[in-house]
């Protein structure tokens, strides 16, 4: 953290300085004044007492002795260490201690004030009442020891205050650093949270309860936000999934509607077509009856009949696609023999170089179905598989098995219901299909083959049959690898759960 005037440490140090700027001088001068006054009083008392004692030695003699005697007495006063200056004034003359220079003698009318003069000597005058005369004893006391003592106190005081000042400055700096540390930690952690790591817990421990409370509150806020955030994320994911589902349903619906409208159109065409085909075929048959056994006319008419029958097959395919050809009679059947019969037909139709591997499971259960339509379904799927194989041959795999349709599967293929289904799968190792082709394979008249090779109806017929049986067809394909068509048909008993509204 950069040290600025606005940081906690700086503020605390500044506060300390401000307090000390007032407090310390006051303390310093206050203490010093108290010490000074005490020392002064002690000194003055001492000087006065000493002066009294010296005066008493003179007064005890009642009268002054010889000059020599008096001077010696003054010298004693000086030598006694009590004063540095001793002068005795009488009416007649002045006695000066021999221990001091005569030039030092000074006259003063009243007692000095402590410290109020230059030479560090405190002068005082004591009156002497002798028998024959009145005298005045002038004494001087050295102030310097006391002044030195006061100076010493001042120095000690200054040191103490300086030490105190720096120690407290240091303590404040340390304390504020300690105070700032959890806040800094908190700041770092919350930055991490802000930058996206929402799982980062704010767990700064501090004995300072404001910081501890702040941490706790921020942590509560964070965990609440994380909860709200994950809920939002979930909602977004759900919405996206729902939208994707909706979209896929719409695509399916559009596809179904397109097939439906094409079916209606095709049914109308087939209707008219059949009205033409019937007399065409019958007239041709009648004409053939009238012709002799051989001849080119007969041959040609036979060709007309053959082509007419092909047209009839085509028309029936259209009708099956339109899901209207006749009324399919659904019976409860075991699908396995139906598929096997269809496969024997398929084997007769395709070259022997193509291997058909069949894995048909028997006794799965019965299926409510139209036998001929199931056979057509198998034939069409196998024929489609055969056409996707290249000239060199390949395999066709046909399996029939029981399959349990799960909820996940139903979500992808909403026509189905959860439960037991028969799964008829036809796979090939052929050319496969790209996704553009996959999207259109059930469209009628859509074909990837050369004109004349395929009608483009085979798979749309398969689709129609599957829908009619409340089933679903799932296609897997990859270009160059092959395709697998899986047809799901509900087992009997499952039918009631199927789409009853989907049948026409």
């Amino acid at each position: 953290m950069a040290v600025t005037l606005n940081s906690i440490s700086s503020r605390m140090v500044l506060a300390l300085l401000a307090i000390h700027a007032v407090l310390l001088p006051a303390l310093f001068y206050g203490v010093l004044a108290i010490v000074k006054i005490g020392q002064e009083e002690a000194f003055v008392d001492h000087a006065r007492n000493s002066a009294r004692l010296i005066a008493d030695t003179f007064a005890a003699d009642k009268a002054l002795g010889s000059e020599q005697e008096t001077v010696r007495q003054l010298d004693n006063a000086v030598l006694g260490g009590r004063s540095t200056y001793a002068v005795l004034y009488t009416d007649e003359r002045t006695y000066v201690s021999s221990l001091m220079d005569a030039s030092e003698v000074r006259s003063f009318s009243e007692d000095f004030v402590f410290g109020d003069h230059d030479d560090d000597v405190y002068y005082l005058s004591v009156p002497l009442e002798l028998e024959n005369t009145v005298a005045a004893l002038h004494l001087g006391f050295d102030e310097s020891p006391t002044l030195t003592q006061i100076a010493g106190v001042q120095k000690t005081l200054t040191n103490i205050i300086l030490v105190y000042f720096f120690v407290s400055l240091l303590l404040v700096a340390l304390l504020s650093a300690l105070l700032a540390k959890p806040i800094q930690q908190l700041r770092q952690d919350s930055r991490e949270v802000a930058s996206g790591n929402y799982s980062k817990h704010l767990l700064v421990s501090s004995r300072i309860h404001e910081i501890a409370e702040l941490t706790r509150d921020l942590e509560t806020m964070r965990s609440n936000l994380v909860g709200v955030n994950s809920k939002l994320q979930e909602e977004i994911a759900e919405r996206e999934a729902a939208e994707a589902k909706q979209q896929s349903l719409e695509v399916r619906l559009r596809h179904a509607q397109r097939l439906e409208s094409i079916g209606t159109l095709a049914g109308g065409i087939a209707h008219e077509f059949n009205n033409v085909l019937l007399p065409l075929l019958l007239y041709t048959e009648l004409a053939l009856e009238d012709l002799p056994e051989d001849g080119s006319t007969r041959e040609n008419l036979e060709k007309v009949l053959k082509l007419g029958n092909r047209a009839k097959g085509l028309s029936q395919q259209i009708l099956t696609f339109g899901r209207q050809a006749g009324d399919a009679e659904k019976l409860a059947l075991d699908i396995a023999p139906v598929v096997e019969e269809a496969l024997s037909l398929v084997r007769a139709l395709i070259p022997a170089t193509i291997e058909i591997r069949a894995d048909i499971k028997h006794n799965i259960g019965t299926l409510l179905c139209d036998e001929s339509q199931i056979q057509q379904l198998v034939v069409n799927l196998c024929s489609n598989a055969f056409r996707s194989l290249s000239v060199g041959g390949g395999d066709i795999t046909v399996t029939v098995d029981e399959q349990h349709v799960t909820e996940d599967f139903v979500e992808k293929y909403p026509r189905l219901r959860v439960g037991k289904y028969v799964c008829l799968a036809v796979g090939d190792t052929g050319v496969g299909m790209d996704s553009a082709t996959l999207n259109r394979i059930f469209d009628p008249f859509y074909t990837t083959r050369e004109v004349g090779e395929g009608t483009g109806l085979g798979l749309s017929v398969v689709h129609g049959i599957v829908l009619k049986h409340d089933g679903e067809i799932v296609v897997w394909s990859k270009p160059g690898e092959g395709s697998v068509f899986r047809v799901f048909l509900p087992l009997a008993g499952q039918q009631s759960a199927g789409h009853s509204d989907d049948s026409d």
Partner: protein
Amino acid sequence: MTRVIVIDDEEDIRNVLKVVLERAGFEVDVAASADEGMNLLRDKKADVVITDIIMPGKDGVDAVYDIRMEFPKTRIIVISGGGNPNPSDYEPRAIKTSAYLASASAAGADVSLTKPFDREELVNAVRTLAERS
């Protein structure tokens, strides 16, 4: 001899059916509409009536009703083109011919055939019904 009346609005169809059935040994009359067919039936009774089901004016279902009311012993074959009628040509009573056929069966038709049927199929149906009438 078994008498058959063929009712179809398409001339080619009723004519080819007439030839086919005559060659099979039946006596055949043709009518272009349900009303014409009813008049023919009233003039000289028939054992079997073959009627198209989707026709302008009175359609095959009505024809079956009428025949059943007046001639309960006459057997009826309804024939249908399959698919669905073009709505611009008629006022269809149902969208799909399968529904028409179901209505006709309900009205009392004995057999229904979807065009294009085989010759034998038709002849056999007429023969079987004629034996019953």
